[in-house]
C-alpha cells in the first residue's frame, strides 16, 4: 500500500485563521475519509491540510424547534447519536447510519460528505429533499446557499478556493411525511430516492440520487400527484452513465421504480 504524499499540517484554533489559509492547495480536513484516499491514489497533492478539529465552534450540534444545525466537524456518528437530532429528524439518523461502515461514520463528517459531492451519496439527496442549506466562510465574510445549489455536479460544488463550509442547517417543519428508499448491492447505491411531503397542502419534493451524475430534484405542487408522471419525469431528467451499478437504461428504469416506491411509502404514513 502506498504512503501518503508529504504535506504540512495546520491546526488552527479559530475560523479566522482557517479562512486565511484555505486555497486549492491548502485543503480543509476533518475525517479525511475521502481526502486521504484521494491523496494516496495520487489524485490530490495539496501543499497542506488544515485540520478543523481544533477550531472553536465547529463541533456544535443544535436541535431547535425549527432547525437542526451541525458544524463542519460533526461526524456522522455524533449526529446520529444526538438525542435532539433523533427527536427532530429521526429519518436523518437512519440515513446517516447508511454511510459507509462504523469506522467511516466515526471519522467522516456531513460537511465532508457535501464538499466531496460523491454522486452516490445517501445524505445529499436526503438533505436536498429537506431543503437544507450550508454556510461558507471566507475572508470576505459568510454566504449561505441551499444544498441543492451547492452541489453542481459529480465531485463538484460551488465552494470557491478561499471558502470553507462551516455549518449545515436542516429546517424542521411540523407536518411533513418523509421517506428514503434505495437499491444497493455494491459498495455504493444504484439509486436512492428521498421524498418529503407537506401534509397540509400536499406539496412534495422528490430527489433522486446515485443513479445520475447530479441529483434530480422534482418539486410537485399538486395535492394528489400522479406517481407515474413523477416517476417518468425523474427517469427522463436523470443523467445516468453506464457503470458497475448498471447501464444508463437500467438506471432510468430502476429510478422510475424507486420513485413510485418512495411515493407509495409516503402515502401509507
Amino acid at each position, binding site marked *: 500500500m502506498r504512503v501518503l504524499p*508529504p504535506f*504540512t*499540517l495546520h491546526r488552527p484554533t479559530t475560523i479566522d485563521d482557517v479562512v486565511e489559509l484555505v486555497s486549492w492547495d491548502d485543503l480543509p480536513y476533518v475525517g479525511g475519509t475521502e481526502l486521504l*484516499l484521494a491523496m494516496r491514489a495520487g489524485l490530490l497533492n495539496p501543499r*497542506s491540510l488544515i485540520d478543523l478539529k481544533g477550531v472553536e465552534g465547529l463541533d456544535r450540534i443544535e436541535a431547535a424547534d425549527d432547525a437542526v444545525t451541525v458544524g463542519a466537524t460533526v461526524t456522522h456518528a455524533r449526529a446520529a447519536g444526538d438525542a435532539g437530532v433523533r427527536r427532530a429528524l429521526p429519518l436523518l439518523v437512519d440515513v446517516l447510519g447508511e454511510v459507509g*461502515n462504523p*469506522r467511516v461514520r*466515526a471519522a467522516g463528517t456531513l460537511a465532508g460528505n457535501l464538499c466531496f459531492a460523491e454522486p452516490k451519496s445517501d445524505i445529499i439527496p436526503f438533505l436536498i429533499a429537506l431543503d437544507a442549506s450550508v454556510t461558507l466562510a471566507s475572508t470576505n465574510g459568510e454566504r449561505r446557499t441551499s444544498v441543492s445549489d451547492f452541489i453542481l455536479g459529480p465531485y463538484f460544488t460551488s465552494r470557491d478556493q478561499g471558502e470553507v463550509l462551516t455549518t449545515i442547517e436542516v429546517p424542521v417543519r411540523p407536518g411533513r411525511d418523509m421517506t428514503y428508499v434505495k437499491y444497493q448491492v455494491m*459498495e455504493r447505491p444504484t439509486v436512492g430516492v428521498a421524498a418529503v411531503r407537506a401534509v397540509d397542502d400536499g406539496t412534495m419534493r422528490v430527489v433522486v440520487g446515485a443513479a445520475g451524475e447530479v441529483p434530480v430534484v422534482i418539486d410537485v405542487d399538486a395535492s394528489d400527484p400522479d406517481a407515474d408522471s413523477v416517476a417518468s419525469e425523474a427517469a427522463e431528467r436523470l443523467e445516468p452513465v453506464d457503470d458497475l451499478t448498471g447501464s444508463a437504461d437500467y438506471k432510468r428504469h430502476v429510478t422510475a421504480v424507486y420513485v413510485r416506491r418512495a411515493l407509495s411509502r409516503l402515502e401509507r404514513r
Partner: protein
Amino acid sequence: MSESSVTISVSVNGSRMSQTVPARLTLAELLRDRLGLTGTKVSCGMQVCGVCTVLVDGAPVSACASLAADANGLEVLTIEGVSEPGSLHPIQEAFIKEFALQCGFCTPGFVMMALALLAENSEPDRGDIVRYLDGNICRCTGYEPIIRAVQAAAAEVHP
C-alpha cells in the same frame, strides 16, 4: 501552527509514548513500523476491509486511513492490548471456540470491531451484528462462524 512534522503523545495499550513524526504518517504506520505492533494489518487502504481496525478513545478507526497526528492526546487500543499476556478476552475465546478464523488475517480487525460493538450494545441481535461488521471482509470463513462467535461472546460477557 504549521508543520510537516508533528510531535505527538499517544497512549497505546495503556503506555504513553511521544514521538515526532511526519504529518503524513498514518496511525497504522505508527503502530506497525514505529512501535512494532503488527497485529494491526493493512490491506485495502480504503476503509472497506477492516483489517486495520483499532479503537481510539473507544471508537473504531481505520488506522490506515487515519493520521497518527489525529491520535495525539488520545488512547489507542490495538489487538495486542485486548487481553493480558497469557490470557484471552472472551471475544477471542469465542472466536476460537466457534472456529471463526482460518488464516487469521482479518481476525484482529473483527475482534476490535466486536469489542466496539459490545461496548455500544451489550445485547446485539443477529441483525445488529451483521450490520456492524458490514465493513469487515473475511475470505476464509464465510462469516457465519464470526457472527456466532460475536453472539457467544455477547452472551458470555452479559449472560
